[in-house]
């Protein structure tokens, strides 16, 4: 008998705390598989965010640093500058990366900081129980937009990949999703490319992963993925926004 499916070596053997149907588990797995395939676990340092994936430091087998809310790109910058031969990745949600940490994100990107950023966009603050995120869609109901996000009051969502694609320091800005098997395959390729870019010293690579939050969206997991396809993908089109060859 041969093993056809196993836990990636660079994931620890502990149960994830994520809600049923949450796609963080898939994204963790894609990152871990990539680290395994590239054989870089021993030289990789991951930066965990504040948000639902705050405990990512427990799940990856490589060395991990927990950052303050939004500061992961700055923390990764410090670690990478001190250790240029190490592989640095941040794993951040939308509140972390696109609201409180916008400055750190934009400046790490424009410096061409040679790091890999995994950006999980599920259009809501999950950890704190479902408040408006910078990426919450117009009309979307959350705890802090109980009448639906009104752009006249709360402004418009931020499209990070489009925004960062304008910066010279960015090597890769790609948006993927994890709502279907083909999309997950594409996501894996993008994540692998983002790590390879770092190995090849190409500069800042960000992969934005459109993700679901069944709990805080108030939907069953399958319905949440449908909602994602119907509502998020039109607003956040998948694709490569910037790619330095």
């Amino acid at each position, binding site marked *: 008998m041969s093993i056809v499916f196993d836990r990636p070596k660079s994931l*620890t053997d502990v149960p994830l705390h994520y809600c049923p149907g949450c796609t963080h588990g898939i994204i963790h797995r894609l990152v871990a598989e990539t680290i395994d395939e590239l054989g870089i676990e021993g030289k990789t*340092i991951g930066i965990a965010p504040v948000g639902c994936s705050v405990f990512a430091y427990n799940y990856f087998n*490589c060395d991990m640093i*927990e*950052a303050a809310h939004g500061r992961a790109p700055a923390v990764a910058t410090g670690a990478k500058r001190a250790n240029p031969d190490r592989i640095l990745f941040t794993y951040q949600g939308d509140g972390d990366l696109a609201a409180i940490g916008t*400055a750190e994100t934009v400046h790490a990107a424009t410096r061409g900081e040679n790091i890999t950023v995994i950006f999980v966009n599920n259009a809501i603050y999950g950890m704190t129980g479902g408040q408006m995120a910078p990426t919450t869609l117009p009309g979307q109901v959350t705890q802090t937009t109980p009448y639906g996000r009104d752009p006249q009051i709360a402004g418009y969502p931020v499209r990070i990949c489009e925004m960062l694609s304008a910066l010279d320091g960015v090597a890769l800005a790609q948006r993927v999703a994890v709502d279907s098997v083909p999309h997950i395959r594409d996501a894996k390729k993008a994540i692998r490319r983002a790590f390879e870019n770092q190995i090849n010293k190409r500069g800042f690579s960000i992969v934005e992963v459109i993700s679901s939050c069944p709990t805080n969206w108030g939907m069953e997991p399958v319905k949440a993925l449908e909602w994602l396809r119907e509502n998020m993908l039109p607003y956040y089109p998948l694709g490569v926004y910037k790619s330095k060859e």
Partner: protein
Amino acid sequence: MAEKVLMKGNEALAESAIRAGCRCFFGYPITPQTEVAAYMAKRMPQIGGTYLQAESEVAAINMVYGATSTGTRAMTSSSSPGISLKAEGISYLAGSDLPAVIINICRGGPGLGGIQPAQSDYNQATKGLAHGDFHILVLAPNCIQEMCDLVSDAFDLADTYRMPAMILGDGMLGQMMEPVALPEPHESKIEKPWAACGTEMKRPHNVINSLYIKPDELERIVMDRYARYRHIEENEVRYEEFMTEDADIVIVAYGASSRIARNAIMAARAEGIKVGMFRPITLWPFPKKALDRVADTARAFLTVELSMGQMIDDVKLAINCRRPVYLANRTGGMVITPNEILAKIREIKGETL
């Protein structure tokens, strides 16, 4: 002893940091400490280190957090408003048991305040730097030689106790030029098995973290940290006494104000008033016991501060209020003169001696 060279406080401090093995500097321009950053920008590339101008003070302290998480000696430097911005990062450093050196070349406040020398960040540095139960080491030089020596010690103490250390200077010390003997370059021997610098597949993963979701676990971690703080209070206190043996009035002053107080002491002695000085060099840990001993013989204390009087509370606590404690101060960037201190000394003499 190395030959003495003339250097500005900010530059001497920066050079000494490099000689103490600082390999990463992250900063943001702010008067009156910008020379530290400018010096680092020039020197770091020459030694294969990192100088990076951050997009903000917040980013700078978090870059320090990242670098020191990997076991690299790292430093940032700012002045009062910038330190407030770094507060979050310093709390995380403390909560993650990370060493780091933070320079505050203090200026007048609050708000944007001014840019002239001040000591109005004493309470911030020693008590209320940011959220949570924690301390950082606070060292207060009063000459350029100490700017050098203490920054070197700050790195060692920070590594030894795995906590941030601050050099609390002021615009006067940062800007002034004085002869200094620079320390020889020295490498730290302190091991950092906790560093998150890549496992090389030779050990379980290291995690740098300040999050403890279970309250009993967090309580235990904080209490362990405070046990370490008690040890530091017993072993790392530094101070200097000047003519305290026979002094009726003992001035307590640190940094710039201790320099000015010296002139006042000489003038008072010339008038026959026995004045001495107790100069805390570590502001945390504050030299409580040593100061309390001075209260056995001194009849009155006078704190000289470039603030509305912040250290004065620590002086009263240290001596259990068993002697009167007076304040001579200027604030907002105004530097007190020896004559102003002397006038206060005469007043105290009239009231209590």
